[in-house]
């Protein structure tokens, strides 16, 4: 009788330790992991990584098809945090831009809507044939509005 109790207790203990270890050490469920990686990204949606937004990049990082150092807006901090989370080597970032916001030179703007349509976070307001402007506190500094502008009236202004 006592042997049985001891054996069962030992099995329970062993299983407990194994499960505890697994929960800590093994990578969690991959869709959760994508969410976690996405949470570490700066959500600028700038596509500088070559993916159409932060979440697609997070998915690519998790399935191993993308490196963790492709996010310039996140900077070295983000690379370090991704390395910590995923247990990968922290790779240096090619270049780290300073935080900046887009500014429209309103005297030159012709109201073509191209920049408004390019903005991934709807931070540009304006209507056809009317002047546009950037909502500074919503701008993520992704620079996606600069290329479409036909009159080159958008520039980046560094923050602080």
């Amino acid at each position, binding site marked *: 009788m006592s042997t049985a109790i001891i054996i069962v207790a030992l099995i329970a203990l062993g299983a407990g330790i194994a499960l505890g270890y697994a929960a800590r050490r093994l990578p969690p469920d991959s869709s959760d992991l994508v969410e976690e990686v996405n949470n570490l990204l700066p*959500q600028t*949606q700038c596509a500088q990584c070559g993916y159409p937004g*932060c979440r697609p990049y997070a998915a690519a990082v998790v399935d191993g098809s993308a490196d963790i150092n492709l996010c310039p807006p996140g900077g070295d901090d983000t690379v370090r945090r991704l390395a910590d989370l995923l247990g990968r080597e922290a790779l240096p970032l090619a270049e780290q831009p300073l935080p900046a916001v887009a500014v429209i030179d309103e005297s030159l703007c012709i109201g073509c809507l191209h920049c408004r349509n390019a903005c*991934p976070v709807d931070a540009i307001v304006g209507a056809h044939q009317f002047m546009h402007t950037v909502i500074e506190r919503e701008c993520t500094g992704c620079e996606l509005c600069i290329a479409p502008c036909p009159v080159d009236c958008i520039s980046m202004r560094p923050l602080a």
Partner: protein
Amino acid sequence: MSAPTYDLGKLHGGLRLPAHKSASTSLPIRTMPLPAQLVLPITQHVGDAAQPVVGAGDKVLKGQLIANVEGALGAPVHASSSGTVVAIESWPVSRRYGDKAPCIVIECDGDDRAFDYPRPAGSYAELAPEALLEQLVRGGIVGLGGAVFPTAQKIMQARSGDIEYLILNGVECEPYISCDDVLMREHAAEILSGAGILMHALQIDACIIAVESDKPEALRSLGDAMGELNDPRISLKQVPTIYPSGGEDQLVQLVTNLEVPSGGLPTDVGCLVQNVGTAAAVHDWIVNREPLLSRITTVTGDGVVEPMNVRARIGTPIADIVAFAGGYTDAAEVLIVGGPMTGKSITTDRVPMVKATNCILVTSRAPAIGEELACIRCGDCAVVCPVQLQPQQLFWHARADNEKKLREFGLIDCIECGCCDLVCPSHIPLTADFRTAKARMQELADEKARAERARHRFEARNDRLQRDEEQRAAELLQQKDQAKQAGPAAIAEILKRKRQQSDED
């Protein structure tokens, strides 16, 4: 005279520090003459900056509103004397972060003509608490203990909870500072009157005035005034002279034996703490109709000729105050606004005295001593920490910038009292490290909030684009269906019309 009571809670850690107070308390409070110029920062309080309502060249009267509060949290600023606004510009100030802030500069005319605030018909007791709070906002009343939290908003937040006690903080545990001590000695009746007003605003019937045991004159004066007033709602408690027993949460624990929970406020355990100076300012505004225009500040240290407590107008340059106290001695080296433990050393005496300035300390040497050595894990810092943190652990994680661990070890509860710095045998500037780490954590949290907002906007935009796409597809399908239903005859009709059109061209 009601006797002080001794049923006290216990404070973890803390230090007995040399008081250095007798130099400034030997004289009665002196009132400073008007300075030539007043410099009034538009942000002297916690919360949003007040917005100037005067411009350069405007004449203002003493007590007139010159900057008004716009956000939910803030306090207005009043002209401390009559004169002309000469500029609204950036000026050196003594704030924890940043060295300059926008200020309204007033050239005093010396007449000190006062703006006339109409006196209410009845006493404050006839006012509804909400109306009284509205009044407190308009008087520019903020906590004068150093944190400068707008008083009305503090009460408003407290009223949503279950408040039992109003605690008036007359502890003033930091060395050198004695402005509350002399206020209690000389203006005990005003403090008690202010306590009554605050209790009415809170709709409670219990007020405890807490005073450190090393202030017998203040205790006696308050006791006498209480005997005269004979208000059973107010009681006096004596707390031991240990730094930092005057910290808000520490005082609550000492007085009520209830511990304020981590990350919480005294209101969580049914207490609201106000400085005694704030209570006196409330009395001056509600009863005498004078907004917060002046305060008592301690000018002391071995760097001033005649240490004393001065009642000076808010906005008086510190240079003028020091000059009033006899000027600097030859030994003067370091100028600190606030006390030696929590104050900030400043590099110019052009800085104005503000609502928060409880002390101007001029000493012959910097309080920091010795070269920083490696941490030897002695644990002395944990012994003295009044919030029972483990500074030695926090120190490691702060240097490693490990946000998660810092959170786990409760950095957020650090009150930056400086006890750990003082006992550290390796002279590690722990408090400075923690301050930086806290700012960094705040920065990270802000960044995270920004990212979260960007993500929401991005997702909302994607949803909208998808919706538009689907709608367009549905419309196209509908048009096709219509054409199909109309049949071949209708199509032939349209084709015929098109052909006619092209023939005409």
